[in-house]
Protein backbone atom coordinates (compact mmCIF):
# COMPACT_ATOMS: atom_id res chain seq x y z
CA UNK A 1 0.00 0.00 0.00
CA UNK A 2 2.84 2.36 0.90
CA UNK A 3 4.68 1.42 -2.33
CA UNK A 4 1.71 2.41 -4.45
CA UNK A 5 1.42 5.65 -2.58
CA UNK A 6 5.05 6.62 -3.28
CA UNK A 7 4.59 5.82 -6.94
CA UNK A 8 1.34 7.74 -7.13
CA UNK A 9 2.92 10.79 -5.57
CA UNK A 10 5.89 10.57 -7.96
CA UNK A 11 3.59 10.21 -10.97
CA UNK A 12 1.70 13.32 -9.92
CA UNK A 13 5.05 15.11 -9.52
CA UNK A 14 6.02 14.08 -13.04
CA UNK A 15 2.69 15.25 -14.42
CA UNK A 16 3.03 18.65 -12.73
CA UNK A 17 6.61 19.16 -13.90
CA UNK A 18 5.67 18.26 -17.47
CA UNK A 19 2.84 20.77 -17.24
CA UNK A 20 5.45 23.38 -16.26
CA UNK A 21 4.61 23.65 -12.57
CA UNK A 22 7.95 22.59 -11.09
CA UNK A 23 7.20 24.13 -7.71
CA UNK A 24 4.14 21.95 -7.15
CA UNK A 25 5.95 18.98 -8.72
CA UNK A 26 8.73 19.32 -6.16
CA UNK A 27 6.24 19.01 -3.26
CA UNK A 28 4.89 15.77 -4.67
CA UNK A 29 8.36 14.34 -5.30
CA UNK A 30 9.46 15.28 -1.79
CA UNK A 31 6.33 13.67 -0.37
CA UNK A 32 7.15 10.55 -2.39
CA UNK A 33 10.66 10.51 -0.91
CA UNK A 34 9.14 10.89 2.58
CA UNK A 35 6.92 7.89 2.00
CA UNK A 36 9.90 6.04 0.59
CA UNK A 37 10.25 2.95 -1.54
CA UNK A 38 12.23 -0.26 -1.57
CA UNK A 39 12.65 0.05 -5.31
CA UNK A 40 15.93 1.85 -5.89
CA UNK A 41 15.32 2.48 -9.58
CA UNK A 42 12.12 4.31 -8.77
CA UNK A 43 13.93 6.27 -6.10
CA UNK A 44 16.69 7.14 -8.59
CA UNK A 45 14.09 8.48 -11.03
CA UNK A 46 12.55 10.58 -8.26
CA UNK A 47 15.93 12.02 -7.23
CA UNK A 48 16.76 12.79 -10.84
CA UNK A 49 13.50 14.63 -11.43
CA UNK A 50 13.80 16.49 -8.14
CA UNK A 51 17.26 17.58 -9.24
CA UNK A 52 15.97 18.79 -12.59
CA UNK A 53 12.99 20.56 -11.04
CA UNK A 54 15.28 22.44 -8.65
CA UNK A 55 17.60 23.20 -11.57
CA UNK A 56 14.75 24.82 -13.51
CA UNK A 57 13.74 26.69 -10.35
CA UNK A 58 17.35 27.99 -10.17
CA UNK A 59 17.87 26.37 -6.76
CA UNK A 60 21.19 24.87 -7.73
CA UNK A 61 22.41 23.76 -4.29
CA UNK A 62 19.29 21.58 -3.99
CA UNK A 63 19.69 20.39 -7.58
CA UNK A 64 23.26 19.39 -6.79
CA UNK A 65 22.17 17.48 -3.72
CA UNK A 66 19.56 15.39 -5.55
CA UNK A 67 21.65 14.70 -8.65
CA UNK A 68 24.38 13.56 -6.31
CA UNK A 69 21.96 11.17 -4.54
CA UNK A 70 20.90 9.90 -7.95
CA UNK A 71 24.50 9.28 -9.01
CA UNK A 72 25.29 7.37 -5.81
CA UNK A 73 22.18 5.27 -6.20
CA UNK A 74 22.80 4.51 -9.89
CA UNK A 75 26.31 3.33 -9.04
CA UNK A 76 25.05 1.22 -6.14
CA UNK A 77 22.57 -0.66 -8.31
CA UNK A 78 25.01 -0.88 -11.21
CA UNK A 79 22.74 1.06 -13.61
CA UNK A 80 25.26 2.34 -16.14
CA UNK A 81 22.83 4.35 -18.26
CA UNK A 82 21.41 5.83 -15.07
CA UNK A 83 24.92 6.73 -13.94
CA UNK A 84 25.62 8.44 -17.27
CA UNK A 85 22.47 10.54 -16.99
CA UNK A 86 23.12 11.46 -13.35
CA UNK A 87 26.72 12.43 -14.23
CA UNK A 88 25.49 14.67 -17.07
CA UNK A 89 22.96 16.41 -14.85
CA UNK A 90 25.49 16.81 -12.06
CA UNK A 91 27.93 18.27 -14.60
CA UNK A 92 25.40 20.84 -15.83
CA UNK A 93 24.60 21.84 -12.25
CA UNK A 94 28.27 22.16 -11.26
CA UNK A 95 28.79 24.34 -14.33
CA UNK A 96 26.09 26.77 -13.26
CA UNK A 97 27.65 26.85 -9.79
CA UNK A 98 31.00 27.77 -11.35
CA UNK A 99 32.76 24.55 -10.39
CA UNK A 100 34.14 23.95 -13.87
CA UNK A 101 36.80 21.35 -13.12
CA UNK A 102 34.36 18.97 -11.41
CA UNK A 103 31.77 19.72 -14.07
CA UNK A 104 34.25 18.59 -16.74
CA UNK A 105 34.91 15.32 -14.89
CA UNK A 106 31.17 14.61 -14.66
CA UNK A 107 30.40 15.50 -18.28
CA UNK A 108 33.39 13.44 -19.42
CA UNK A 109 31.96 10.48 -17.45
CA UNK A 110 28.63 10.98 -19.24
CA UNK A 111 30.53 10.93 -22.54
CA UNK A 112 32.64 7.85 -21.69
CA UNK A 113 29.68 5.75 -20.59
CA UNK A 114 27.61 6.81 -23.62
CA UNK A 115 30.45 5.68 -25.89
CA UNK A 116 30.82 2.45 -23.94
CA UNK A 117 27.09 1.76 -24.38
CA UNK A 118 27.30 2.86 -28.02
CA UNK A 119 24.56 5.38 -27.21
CA UNK A 120 24.89 8.00 -29.96
CA UNK A 121 22.16 10.25 -28.58
CA UNK A 122 23.79 10.28 -25.14
CA UNK A 123 27.22 10.86 -26.68
CA UNK A 124 25.95 13.89 -28.61
CA UNK A 125 24.28 15.33 -25.54
CA UNK A 126 27.42 14.84 -23.45
CA UNK A 127 29.48 16.64 -26.13
CA UNK A 128 27.04 19.56 -26.07
CA UNK A 129 27.25 19.72 -22.27
CA UNK A 130 31.06 19.64 -22.38
CA UNK A 131 31.00 22.46 -24.91
CA UNK A 132 28.80 24.46 -22.54
CA UNK A 133 31.13 23.88 -19.59
CA UNK A 134 34.21 25.03 -21.53
CA UNK A 135 32.30 28.02 -22.90
CA UNK A 136 31.28 29.10 -19.38
CA UNK A 137 34.76 28.46 -18.08
CA UNK A 138 36.30 30.64 -20.77
CA UNK A 139 33.81 33.43 -20.23
CA UNK A 140 34.22 33.25 -16.48
CA UNK A 141 38.02 33.44 -16.53
CA UNK A 142 37.82 36.36 -18.96
CA UNK A 143 35.48 38.43 -16.83
CA UNK A 144 37.15 37.60 -13.52
CA UNK A 145 40.61 38.51 -14.82
CA UNK A 146 42.22 41.76 -13.78
CA UNK A 147 44.19 41.99 -16.99
CA UNK A 148 43.90 45.04 -19.22
CA UNK A 149 42.21 44.71 -22.56
CA UNK A 150 44.78 43.19 -24.81
CA UNK A 151 45.44 39.74 -26.02
CA UNK A 152 43.01 37.00 -25.11
CA UNK A 153 44.65 35.27 -22.17
CA UNK A 154 45.82 31.81 -23.16
CA UNK A 155 43.59 29.95 -20.71
CA UNK A 156 40.51 31.79 -21.99
CA UNK A 157 41.40 31.11 -25.60
CA UNK A 158 42.11 27.45 -24.95
CA UNK A 159 38.83 26.91 -23.06
CA UNK A 160 36.82 28.61 -25.79
CA UNK A 161 38.62 26.66 -28.50
CA UNK A 162 37.79 23.42 -26.68
CA UNK A 163 34.16 24.51 -26.47
CA UNK A 164 34.11 25.12 -30.23
CA UNK A 165 35.63 21.67 -30.85
CA UNK A 166 33.01 19.95 -28.68
CA UNK A 167 30.18 21.80 -30.42
CA UNK A 168 31.61 20.76 -33.81
CA UNK A 169 31.84 17.12 -32.67
CA UNK A 170 28.28 17.31 -31.40
CA UNK A 171 27.15 18.79 -34.73
CA UNK A 172 28.67 15.90 -36.67
CA UNK A 173 26.67 13.35 -34.65
CA UNK A 174 23.35 15.21 -34.48
CA UNK A 175 23.57 15.86 -38.22
CA UNK A 176 24.00 12.11 -38.77
CA UNK A 177 21.06 11.50 -36.46
CA UNK A 178 19.02 14.13 -38.30
CA UNK A 179 18.20 15.88 -35.03
CA UNK A 180 17.47 19.42 -36.21
CA UNK A 181 16.57 20.78 -32.78
CA UNK A 182 19.94 19.69 -31.39
CA UNK A 183 21.67 21.18 -34.43
CA UNK A 184 19.97 24.47 -33.70
CA UNK A 185 21.25 24.55 -30.13
CA UNK A 186 24.78 23.61 -31.17
CA UNK A 187 24.87 26.29 -33.91
CA UNK A 188 23.69 28.93 -31.46
CA UNK A 189 26.32 28.21 -28.85
CA UNK A 190 29.04 27.61 -31.45
CA UNK A 191 28.21 31.03 -32.87
CA UNK A 192 28.57 32.63 -29.44
CA UNK A 193 31.90 30.87 -28.91
CA UNK A 194 33.26 32.13 -32.24
CA UNK A 195 32.05 35.58 -31.26
CA UNK A 196 34.04 35.52 -28.02
CA UNK A 197 37.07 34.21 -29.90
CA UNK A 198 36.73 37.20 -32.22
CA UNK A 199 35.80 35.06 -35.26
CA UNK A 200 32.88 37.27 -36.20
CA UNK A 201 32.38 35.91 -39.73
CA UNK A 202 32.17 32.36 -38.38
CA UNK A 203 29.79 33.58 -35.69
CA UNK A 204 27.50 35.05 -38.35
CA UNK A 205 27.54 31.79 -40.34
CA UNK A 206 26.61 29.74 -37.26
CA UNK A 207 23.85 32.13 -36.16
CA UNK A 208 22.42 32.16 -39.68
CA UNK A 209 22.09 28.38 -39.45
CA UNK A 210 20.51 28.77 -36.04
CA UNK A 211 18.03 31.26 -37.46
CA UNK A 212 17.10 28.91 -40.31
CA UNK A 213 16.38 26.05 -37.91
CA UNK A 214 14.44 28.30 -35.52
CA UNK A 215 12.19 29.32 -38.43
CA UNK A 216 11.77 25.67 -39.44
CA UNK A 217 10.41 24.92 -35.97
CA UNK A 218 8.46 28.15 -35.64
CA UNK A 219 10.47 28.69 -32.45
CA UNK A 220 10.16 32.44 -32.01
CA UNK A 221 12.29 32.64 -28.88
CA UNK A 222 15.17 30.93 -30.67
CA UNK A 223 14.56 33.18 -33.69
CA UNK A 224 14.80 36.23 -31.45
CA UNK A 225 18.01 34.94 -29.88
CA UNK A 226 19.52 34.44 -33.32
CA UNK A 227 18.63 38.00 -34.41
CA UNK A 228 20.15 39.42 -31.26
CA UNK A 229 23.36 37.41 -31.63
CA UNK A 230 23.60 38.35 -35.31
CA UNK A 231 23.24 41.99 -34.31
CA UNK A 232 26.09 41.63 -31.82
CA UNK A 233 28.38 40.02 -34.40
CA UNK A 234 27.65 42.67 -37.06
CA UNK A 235 28.51 45.39 -34.55
CA UNK A 236 32.00 43.96 -34.29
CA UNK A 237 32.26 43.57 -38.04
CA UNK A 238 31.66 47.33 -38.13
CA UNK A 239 28.43 46.82 -40.11
CA UNK A 240 26.22 48.96 -37.91
CA UNK A 241 23.33 49.31 -40.38
CA UNK A 242 22.98 45.54 -40.65
CA UNK A 243 23.26 45.24 -36.88
CA UNK A 244 20.45 47.77 -36.43
CA UNK A 245 18.22 45.76 -38.78
CA UNK A 246 18.76 42.60 -36.72
CA UNK A 247 18.20 44.41 -33.43
CA UNK A 248 14.95 45.82 -34.84
CA UNK A 249 13.76 42.30 -35.58
CA UNK A 250 14.77 41.33 -32.03
CA UNK A 251 12.69 44.21 -30.73
CA UNK A 252 9.71 43.26 -32.89
CA UNK A 253 9.77 39.67 -31.61
CA UNK A 254 10.35 40.75 -28.00
CA UNK A 255 7.19 42.84 -28.26
CA UNK A 256 5.24 39.97 -29.83
CA UNK A 257 6.46 37.63 -27.10
CA UNK A 258 5.58 40.27 -24.49
CA UNK A 259 8.98 40.02 -22.82
CA UNK A 260 9.62 43.47 -21.38
CA UNK A 261 13.15 42.72 -20.17
CA UNK A 262 14.20 41.52 -23.60
CA UNK A 263 12.45 44.49 -25.19
CA UNK A 264 14.49 46.78 -22.94
CA UNK A 265 17.70 45.01 -23.94
CA UNK A 266 16.85 45.39 -27.63
CA UNK A 267 16.17 49.13 -27.15
CA UNK A 268 19.48 49.51 -25.35
CA UNK A 269 21.34 47.71 -28.14
CA UNK A 270 19.59 49.90 -30.72
CA UNK A 271 20.47 53.03 -28.74
CA UNK A 272 24.13 52.03 -28.77
CA UNK A 273 24.04 51.09 -32.44
CA UNK A 274 22.58 54.47 -33.44
CA UNK A 275 25.24 56.12 -31.31
CA UNK A 276 27.84 54.28 -33.38
CA UNK A 277 26.00 55.46 -36.51
CA UNK A 278 26.15 58.96 -34.98
CA UNK A 279 22.40 59.29 -35.30
CA UNK A 280 21.98 60.68 -31.79
CA UNK A 281 18.29 61.55 -32.15
CA UNK A 282 17.41 57.92 -32.77
CA UNK A 283 19.88 56.81 -30.10
CA UNK A 284 18.09 59.01 -27.56
CA UNK A 285 14.73 57.71 -28.70
CA UNK A 286 15.75 54.09 -28.00
CA UNK A 287 17.62 54.88 -24.79
CA UNK A 288 14.50 56.63 -23.49
CA UNK A 289 12.42 53.55 -24.33
CA UNK A 290 14.98 51.48 -22.44
CA UNK A 291 14.81 53.88 -19.51
CA UNK A 292 11.02 53.65 -19.26
CA UNK A 293 11.09 49.84 -19.14
CA UNK A 294 14.01 49.78 -16.69
CA UNK A 295 11.97 52.02 -14.35
CA UNK A 296 8.90 49.87 -14.87
CA UNK A 297 10.88 46.74 -13.93
CA UNK A 298 12.59 48.55 -11.01
CA UNK A 299 15.94 47.71 -12.64
CA UNK A 300 18.14 50.33 -11.00
CA UNK A 301 21.32 49.21 -12.73
CA UNK A 302 19.60 49.37 -16.10
CA UNK A 303 18.21 52.80 -15.23
CA UNK A 304 21.70 54.02 -14.36
CA UNK A 305 23.08 52.73 -17.65
CA UNK A 306 20.22 54.42 -19.51
CA UNK A 307 20.95 57.75 -17.81
CA UNK A 308 24.64 57.47 -18.58
CA UNK A 309 23.94 56.67 -22.25
CA UNK A 310 21.41 59.49 -22.49
CA UNK A 311 23.85 61.91 -20.91
CA UNK A 312 26.45 60.99 -23.52
CA UNK A 313 24.01 61.22 -26.43
CA UNK A 314 22.67 64.63 -25.34
CA UNK A 315 26.24 65.85 -24.93
CA UNK A 316 27.00 64.74 -28.48
CA UNK A 317 24.01 66.79 -29.66
CA UNK A 318 25.22 69.76 -27.62
CA UNK A 319 22.09 69.68 -25.44
CA UNK A 320 24.03 70.26 -22.26
CA UNK A 321 21.03 70.92 -20.03
CA UNK A 322 19.55 67.52 -20.72
CA UNK A 323 23.04 66.02 -20.52
CA UNK A 324 23.48 67.53 -17.05
CA UNK A 325 20.07 66.27 -15.99
CA UNK A 326 20.93 62.65 -16.91
CA UNK A 327 24.48 62.84 -15.57
CA UNK A 328 23.06 63.98 -12.23
CA UNK A 329 20.52 61.18 -12.30
CA UNK A 330 23.35 58.72 -13.13
CA UNK A 331 25.27 59.98 -10.11
CA UNK A 332 22.22 59.59 -7.85
CA UNK A 333 21.53 56.05 -9.00
CA UNK A 334 25.17 55.01 -8.78
CA UNK A 335 25.20 56.17 -5.16
CA UNK A 336 21.92 54.39 -4.50
CA UNK A 337 23.13 51.04 -5.82
CA UNK A 338 26.62 51.48 -4.36
CA UNK A 339 28.32 51.47 -7.77
CA UNK A 340 31.56 53.24 -6.87
CA UNK A 341 33.03 53.35 -10.36
CA UNK A 342 29.68 54.43 -11.82
CA UNK A 343 29.69 57.24 -9.29
CA UNK A 344 33.19 58.26 -10.36
CA UNK A 345 32.23 58.18 -14.04
CA UNK A 346 29.19 60.32 -13.34
CA UNK A 347 31.30 62.84 -11.39
CA UNK A 348 33.80 63.06 -14.24
CA UNK A 349 31.01 63.51 -16.77
CA UNK A 350 29.49 66.23 -14.63
CA UNK A 351 32.77 68.06 -14.24
CA UNK A 352 33.38 67.79 -17.99
CA UNK A 353 29.92 69.18 -18.65
CA UNK A 354 30.35 71.98 -16.15
CA UNK A 355 33.53 72.91 -17.97
CA UNK A 356 31.79 72.92 -21.34
CA UNK A 357 28.99 75.04 -19.94
CA UNK A 358 31.52 77.33 -18.28
CA UNK A 359 33.37 77.73 -21.56
CA UNK A 360 30.31 78.46 -23.62
CA UNK A 361 29.49 81.43 -21.38
CA UNK A 362 33.07 82.68 -21.44
CA UNK A 363 34.62 85.08 -23.92
CA UNK A 364 37.80 85.39 -21.93
CA UNK A 365 40.96 83.89 -23.41
CA UNK A 366 42.71 83.49 -20.07
CA UNK A 367 39.72 81.51 -18.85
CA UNK A 368 40.24 79.18 -21.77
CA UNK A 369 43.89 78.55 -21.06
CA UNK A 370 42.98 77.90 -17.46
CA UNK A 371 40.50 75.33 -18.61
CA UNK A 372 43.14 73.79 -20.79
CA UNK A 373 45.33 73.20 -17.77
CA UNK A 374 42.42 71.72 -15.89
CA UNK A 375 41.72 69.52 -18.87
CA UNK A 376 45.27 68.18 -18.96
CA UNK A 377 45.01 67.57 -15.28
CA UNK A 378 41.83 65.65 -15.77
CA UNK A 379 43.41 63.52 -18.44
CA UNK A 380 46.29 62.80 -16.15
CA UNK A 381 44.20 61.76 -13.21
CA UNK A 382 41.32 60.21 -15.05
CA UNK A 383 41.05 56.67 -13.82
CA UNK A 384 40.48 54.98 -17.13
CA UNK A 385 40.24 51.64 -15.45
CA UNK A 386 37.41 52.97 -13.35
CA UNK A 387 35.48 54.00 -16.40
CA UNK A 388 35.98 50.67 -18.01
CA UNK A 389 34.74 48.77 -15.02
CA UNK A 390 31.72 50.99 -14.69
CA UNK A 391 30.41 49.58 -17.92
CA UNK A 392 28.24 46.56 -17.77
CA UNK A 393 29.04 43.37 -19.65
CA UNK A 394 32.64 44.12 -20.33
CA UNK A 395 33.71 40.68 -21.47
CA UNK A 396 33.40 41.61 -25.09
CA UNK A 397 35.67 44.62 -24.97
CA UNK A 398 38.25 42.74 -22.98
CA UNK A 399 38.13 39.86 -25.38
CA UNK A 400 38.20 41.78 -28.62
CA UNK A 401 40.25 44.87 -28.05
CA UNK A 402 41.52 45.25 -31.63
CA UNK A 403 38.02 45.58 -32.98
CA UNK A 404 37.08 48.02 -30.29
CA UNK A 405 40.12 50.11 -31.07
CA UNK A 406 39.03 50.19 -34.70
CA UNK A 407 35.85 51.97 -33.77
CA UNK A 408 37.79 55.11 -33.03
Amino acid at each position, binding site marked *: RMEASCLEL*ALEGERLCKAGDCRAGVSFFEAAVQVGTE*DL*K*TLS*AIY*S*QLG*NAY*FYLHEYAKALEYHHHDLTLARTIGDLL*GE*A*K*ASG*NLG*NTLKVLGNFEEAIVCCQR*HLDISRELNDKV*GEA*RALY*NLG*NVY*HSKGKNVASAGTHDPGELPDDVKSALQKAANYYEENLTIVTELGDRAAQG*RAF*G*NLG*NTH*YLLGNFRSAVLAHEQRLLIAKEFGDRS*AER*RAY*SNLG*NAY*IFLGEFETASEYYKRTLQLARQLKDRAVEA*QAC*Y*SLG*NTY*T*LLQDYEKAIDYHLKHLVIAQELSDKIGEG*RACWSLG*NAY*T*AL*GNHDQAMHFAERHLEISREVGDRSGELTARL*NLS*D*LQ*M*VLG*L*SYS*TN*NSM*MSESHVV*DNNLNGTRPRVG*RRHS*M*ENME*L*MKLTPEKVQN*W*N
Partner: protein
Amino acid sequence: SQPLAGRQAAELQSKVVPSKQILHSDNMEMEPETMETKSVTDYFSKLHMGSLVYSCTSKRKSK
Protein backbone atom coordinates in the same frame (compact mmCIF):
# COMPACT_ATOMS: atom_id res chain seq x y z
CA SER B 1 37.87 84.26 -29.75
CA GLN B 2 34.37 82.80 -30.30
CA PRO B 3 35.42 80.26 -32.94
CA LEU B 4 38.39 79.33 -30.75
CA ALA B 5 36.13 78.83 -27.76
CA GLY B 6 33.82 76.82 -29.94
CA ARG B 7 36.62 74.57 -31.05
CA GLN B 8 37.79 74.10 -27.49
CA ALA B 9 34.27 73.19 -26.47
CA ALA B 10 34.05 70.72 -29.33
CA GLU B 11 37.31 69.11 -28.25
CA LEU B 12 36.05 68.82 -24.71
CA GLN B 13 32.81 67.49 -25.99
CA SER B 14 34.52 64.70 -27.87
CA LYS B 15 36.35 63.83 -24.68
CA VAL B 16 33.06 63.49 -22.89
CA VAL B 17 31.89 61.05 -25.49
CA PRO B 18 34.87 59.13 -26.81
CA SER B 19 33.66 56.27 -28.94
CA LYS B 20 35.27 53.78 -26.58
CA GLN B 21 32.73 54.79 -24.01
CA ILE B 22 29.90 53.76 -26.26
CA LEU B 23 29.13 50.56 -24.65
CA HIS B 24 27.79 47.88 -26.83
CA SER B 25 25.56 45.78 -24.65
CA ASP B 26 27.16 42.43 -24.94
CA ASN B 27 24.18 40.41 -23.98
CA MET B 28 24.98 37.10 -25.60
CA GLU B 29 21.99 34.84 -25.91
CA MET B 30 22.88 31.26 -25.08
CA GLU B 31 20.88 28.19 -26.01
CA PRO B 32 19.21 26.28 -23.17
CA GLU B 33 20.89 23.44 -21.31
CA THR B 34 19.71 19.92 -21.93
CA MET B 35 19.11 17.84 -18.83
CA GLU B 36 18.91 14.06 -18.88
CA THR B 37 15.53 12.75 -17.81
CA LYS B 38 14.36 9.72 -15.92
CA SER B 39 10.82 8.66 -15.20
CA VAL B 40 9.32 6.33 -12.64
CA THR B 41 7.33 4.80 -15.49
CA ASP B 42 10.50 3.87 -17.43
CA TYR B 43 11.06 0.92 -15.17
CA PHE B 44 7.44 -0.09 -15.03
CA SER B 45 6.85 0.16 -18.75
CA LYS B 46 9.87 -2.09 -19.30
CA LEU B 47 8.52 -4.57 -16.77
CA HIS B 48 5.14 -4.37 -18.44
CA MET B 49 6.64 -4.82 -21.90
CA GLY B 50 8.70 -7.71 -20.62
CA SER B 51 5.65 -9.49 -19.37
CA LEU B 52 3.81 -8.76 -22.64
CA VAL B 53 6.67 -10.20 -24.65
CA TYR B 54 6.69 -13.16 -22.32
CA SER B 55 2.98 -13.76 -22.61
CA CYS B 56 3.10 -13.46 -26.43
CA THR B 57 5.96 -15.88 -26.80
CA SER B 58 4.46 -18.30 -24.31
CA LYS B 59 1.13 -18.10 -26.16
CA ARG B 60 2.88 -18.76 -29.45
CA LYS B 61 4.77 -21.66 -27.90
CA SER B 62 1.62 -23.15 -26.48
CA LYS B 63 -0.09 -23.02 -29.89
